[in-house]
């Protein structure tokens, strides 16, 4: 009798000590509410408990280097910038995932950002698309405006908007760490230089001072000089102002659908002639110092595989990086966005992929360009200083 009881107690105790995996991600508030169901589904299917901790990428930058040097890690699956995953993968702090992730299953190029020296150090989760300039359909119909189909029509539209009395400026400029401005810039570069240009710049095959790059940048600078872009304002405030009618256009990513009262009033158009659209995926990795390497690898494979991503996109606001997910899984507004990337080349985000000092400098110089477009040459020189080189 005592033996049976002891055994029962030990069994119960062992269950209590069952593995709990920790996932670290940057999403909080409503974004977190959309992520947790995915983790719950994993637990439901496998019985492994998952705990979610919030750490923004900037904070992880402060925390992880020190932890890794002491052979510790704060989580088992961690979401982080792709360039960090590459760097620290090369330094040996990350478990390679080639045995659990099959790159064929993903959109072409989706896993390039986390591959270094032939090894796959991270995996791509869902992402956000940055399709172009968003407008309110009601605003356009109220003022008799039409979506431009050529560059000249686009400039004409901007001129018409500039002369409208109630607008601060035709296009709202978002300020913040810098990505609202770099997103627009990359769009111009890809449109006028072709989708290949993004890859060439990431590799360092082309100089920023070259004709093909200048083409896009000069067009952008000329629009800024003519006053078509507003002064950079904190981007969530700018969103409110744009929605309230202080601006007509706002270059944003697909997360905007979750940030407005009436997503059905949203319309979007890319720069006429654009053949590539930036698709910013979220990346995750498994640190070498996790206590449960096998379970962690299982979790990351599930999360970033078809099953996890399907659950995620059905929550809205995300687009899958893995192939073969039926469009029916998307809520209606996101379906439109998902369709957009099916027609053009999905490009990686330029500054996110290069990362490091380049990204900080790129963002910083663009903020300068936006208020002093006459300093374009200076800006190009400084960016080139920190750009990767072959």
């Amino acid at each position, binding site marked *: 009798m005592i033996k049976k009881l002891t055994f029962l107690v030990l069994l119960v105790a062992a269950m209590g000590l069952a593995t709990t995996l920790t996932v670290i991600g940057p999403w909080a508030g409503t974004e977190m509410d959309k992520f947790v169901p995915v983790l719950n589904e994993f637990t439901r299917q496998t019985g492994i408990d998952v705990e979610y901790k919030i750490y923004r990428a900037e904070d992880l930058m402060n925390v992880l280097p020190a932890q890794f040097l002491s052979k510790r890690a704060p989580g088992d699956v961690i979401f982080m910038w792709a360039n960090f995953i590459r760097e620290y993968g090369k330094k040996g702090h990350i478990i390679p995932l080639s045995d659990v992730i099959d790159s064929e299953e993903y959109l072409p190029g989706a896993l390039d950002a986390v591959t270094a020296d032939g090894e796959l150090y991270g995996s791509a989760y869902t992402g956000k698309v940055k399709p172009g300039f968003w407008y309110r359909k009601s605003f356009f119909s109220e003022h008799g405006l039409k979506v431009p189909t050529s560059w000249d029509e686009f400039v004409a539209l901007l001129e018409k908007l500039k002369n409208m009395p109630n607008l601060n400026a035709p296009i709202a400029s978002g300020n913040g760490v810098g990505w609202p401005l770099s997103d627009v810039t990359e769009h111009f570069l890809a449109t006028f230089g072709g989708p290949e240009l993004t890859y060439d710049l990431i590799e360092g095959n082309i100089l920023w001072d070259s004709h093909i790059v200048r083409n896009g940048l000069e067009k952008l600078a000329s629009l800024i000089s003519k006053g078509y872009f507003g002064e950079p304002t904190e981007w969530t405030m700018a969103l409110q102002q744009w929605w309230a009618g202080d601006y007509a256009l706002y270059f944003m990513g697909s997360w905007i659908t979750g940030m407005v009262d009436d997503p059905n009033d949203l319309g979007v158009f890319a720069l006429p002639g654009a053949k590539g659209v930036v698709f910013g995926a979220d990346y995750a990795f498994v640190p070498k110092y996790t206590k449960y390497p096998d379970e962690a690898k299982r979790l990351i494979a599930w999360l970033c595989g078809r099953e996890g991503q399907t659950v995620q996109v059905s929550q809205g606001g995300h687009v899958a990086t893995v192939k073969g997910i039926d469009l029916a899984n998307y809520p209606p507004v996101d379906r439109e966005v998902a369709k957009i990337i099916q027609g053009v080349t999905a490009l990686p985000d330029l500054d996110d992929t290069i990362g490091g000092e380049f990204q900080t400098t790129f963002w910083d110089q663009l903020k300068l360009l936006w208020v002093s477009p006459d300093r374009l040459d200076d800006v190009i020189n*400084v960016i080139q200083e920190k750009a990767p080189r072959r």
Partner: protein
Amino acid sequence: MSRKRGSKYAAFFLLPALIMLAVFVIYPVGRTAYISFFDENGTFVGLKNYSKVLTSREIIDLSGFSRGFPLGALVHNIIWVAIHLPLTIILGLSLAVLLKGVKGGSIIKSIVFLGMVMPMIIGGVMINFMFDRNLGVVNAFLGLFGFQAKSWTVYPDSALLSLIFGSVWLWTGFSVILYSAGLETIPKDYYEAAKLDGAGPWKTFTKITIPLLKPITVVVATMTLLWELKIFDIVYVTTAGGPGGASNVMALQMYIYAFRALDFNRAAVVAVILTLFTLLVSIPLVRSVRDDER
């Protein structure tokens, strides 16, 4: 005015502090200085890192004097000190004197103290919004006088200045508090004697208050100076050093080296340069308060 020499009690008073400092402060600091002389592969390179850092555009950019900001992080810190230090001392002292004996003086002092207490994540946003063209009080105020509105933190030539003035709001509480404490300790006898001699308020202020507060002024000046050299949080959250590096400061550049470029050696160099600067300034200040001063 005699002094005890080498009393056995000296150890009692000083040892705990020195031990804690050695372990938690001096050791990490020493390590940092150490790695500034090596490169990323661990090879000793002497002063090469130093010349690399001091000649980089981010640290000193002399062409800025003709074209406009940025002038380099080092120059920016110097400008910061030149404007912020005198303002803090004068404002702090004036407010402390002004508020002594005013009804509800401690409430007013708490209002000034708000700046010290504000978490940077909100302090930075506050400064951005304060100077914004459409959302900001500063522009609304200047608009009353007919000034053209613009978002001050977004333009290279005004970004640093808006931060400096914002930081005055944030840091004055420090000097007010320390000066208030100093004022409380001046013996009433001195003031009474001065009144008997027929001295007016200004004379009392300049001949009694200011000299007696000198040791406090040294502390305020030193701490403020150090704070100005180390300034990071507020710049990081407000402009991240921009636009185009126009509001970059040494501590932020050090952060970028360490946590963005992942170059810990260059970051250590900046740290050492900052320390040397501090030494340059604080040693004379510290010496100026000689022990046989009353």
